[in-house]
């Protein structure tokens, strides 16, 4: 990591103290819920496996299984003081990690292996994104994950400026690009154009941002352990 990084680290100590116990509680609550769910699943399956089996299973090489994360969906946008802002899935100084749903989980598990894959209908061969239970063209529930070449073109981009969540404000203005995949032109992935997989979100000179610019995928592992695709210019 380069530029914005030292500044973010220096503010870490103070902010963390105030939210740490809340975050820990939230994580603990989630863990309890998860292990209870795992226990329930074992009961149903009659399996004697230990509680961490689900975690191991989610990293199994092929085919990846969905890791279900318990998510509290707020029914409102503006109820004050419910603490939603404090229940961050990762420490608040860090960038947000993806919270996969059941359909999306394989995408992230393949990303962790450095592979960009897209859900594809086994019956009619149509790729689809975002992932979903069945094919909107032929209604088949059978799908697999097709590997992409990792090449594409910038379809559009923005440069967010504050107000932003703190970790993003620290690197703003940065770029967010929308990449049209060469292998599946209707699928456009949101990502960041960077000078290297682990470089800061603002590492590319904004003058280099251009609709139509060819890009290729790279993978970056976030502090929380999730791996996300990022994008490099084909002609840096």
């Amino acid at each position, binding site marked *: 990591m380069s530029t914005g990084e030292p500044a973010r680290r220096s503010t870490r100590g103070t902010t963390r103290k105030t939210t740490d116990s809340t975050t820990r509680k939230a994580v603990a609550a989630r863990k309890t819920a998860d292990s209870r769910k795992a226990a329930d699943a074992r009961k149903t399956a009659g399996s004697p496996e230990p509680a961490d089996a689900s975690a191991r299973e989610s990293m199994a090489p092929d085919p990846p299984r969905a890791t279900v994360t318990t998510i509290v969906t707020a029914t409102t946008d503006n109820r004050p003081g419910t603490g939603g802002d404090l229940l961050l899935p990762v420490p608040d100084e860090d960038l947000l990690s993806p919270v996969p*749903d059941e359909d999306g989980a394989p995408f992230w598990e393949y990303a962790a292996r450095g592979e960009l894959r897209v859900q594809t209908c086994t019956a009619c061969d149509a790729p689809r994104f975002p992932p979903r239970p069945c094919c909107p063209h032929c209604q088949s529930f059978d799908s697999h994950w097709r590997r992409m070449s990792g090449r594409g073109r910038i379809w559009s981009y923005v440069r967010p400026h504050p107000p932003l969540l703190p970790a993003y404000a620290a690197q703003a203005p940065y770029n967010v690009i929308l990449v049209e995949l060469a292998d599946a032109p209707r699928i456009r992935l949101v990502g*960041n154009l960077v000078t290297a997989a682990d470089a800061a979100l603002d590492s590319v000179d904004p003058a280099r941002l251009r609709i139509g610019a060819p890009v290729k995928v790279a993978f970056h592992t976030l502090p929380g352990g999730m791996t996300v695709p990022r994008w490099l210019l084909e002609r840096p």
Partner: protein
Amino acid sequence: MGATLKDATAIVGIGQTPFAKHLPESEKALACRAVLAALDDAGIAPSEVDAFASYTMEETDEVEIAKAIGAGEVTHFSKVGYGGGGSCATVAHLAAAIATGQASVGVAWRSRKRGSGPRPWKNTQAQLPTPGQWTRPFGLLRPADEIGMLARRYMHEYGATRDHLFNVALACRNRANQNPDAIMYDRPLTREMYMTARWISEPLCLFDNCLETDGALACVIVSAERARDCRQRPVYVHSAAQGLPAQHHGMVNYWNDDPLTGPAWTAARHLWKGADLGPQDVDVAQIYDAFTPLIPLSLEGYGFCGRGEGAAFTEGGALEIGGRLPLNTGGGGLSEAYVHGFNLITEGVKQLRGTSTAQVPDAATCLVTAGEGVPTSALLLRS
């Protein structure tokens, strides 16, 4: 032939609270004030209300409103999803209920303390799951970022410029400068202010974004027959539509054949199909303006111009009073108040009553739209 919505119902009462960055009262109290004001405007007693409609994002439930204002037995209540996309649908649902005999006096409302309350996008817990997993980790955090992405592409494809977006911001601000209730009543906008404003998400600057407002509004809907006995001149719901296009993805509509045609196109097809009128007959339009680029997209969607011509449509004062299509004559979400588009409905009613602060002479037909870029809705009102 079953019941038809066409001119079967009318809006007979409107009410609102003041608009401000911060109002001291609760959302519930503001909602009650707006609803009671609308009923008083209509000359209908609260005990006669038997239907309610609002947004899923509305904090105050109909149970609370009904018991606070003293409503009688309520036989229809519904809530519409997708934030500002639901505004016109609240009226449409009540119109459908009244036209089919499910209820007789309907109240739609929205109360929101978005000015002094938290920003929805800061709630990471609620925002991260589908489809947030595909966008938010990369810093596409706010609606402004999501719409900015489509705006950049639109500018690239059709040669739209920031001047076109400024035309939208200016028209709304000019109307707000005529409206004492508008938050931006005494604050004119110049091109220099716009061009030098701070960025929010390039290519969108501060003035491309709507206001953050506390406030509440409501309206009362009854059958056309009953409307004739009400205190105010009836404003008829001539046509109404909702729109969720095939393979639409909400504000991050990036994953289909044509992301630049959104829900407006779907709602428009149904709206005009149910109407005796077309876009050429519209005297004044209240088009949802959470962000300036939604206006050119909506102008195309609702058929005021061809594909890719929405930006050019704004040239030459077209959106000003006396122009081809006077826009958001109370100031809109950009300059009057942002209350999820409900003030666009009430302003449409004012125009057709002839009581707007920026009255379009002899206005007889008004298009009102809800949020474009999310599953949306629209109303065609006539006097």
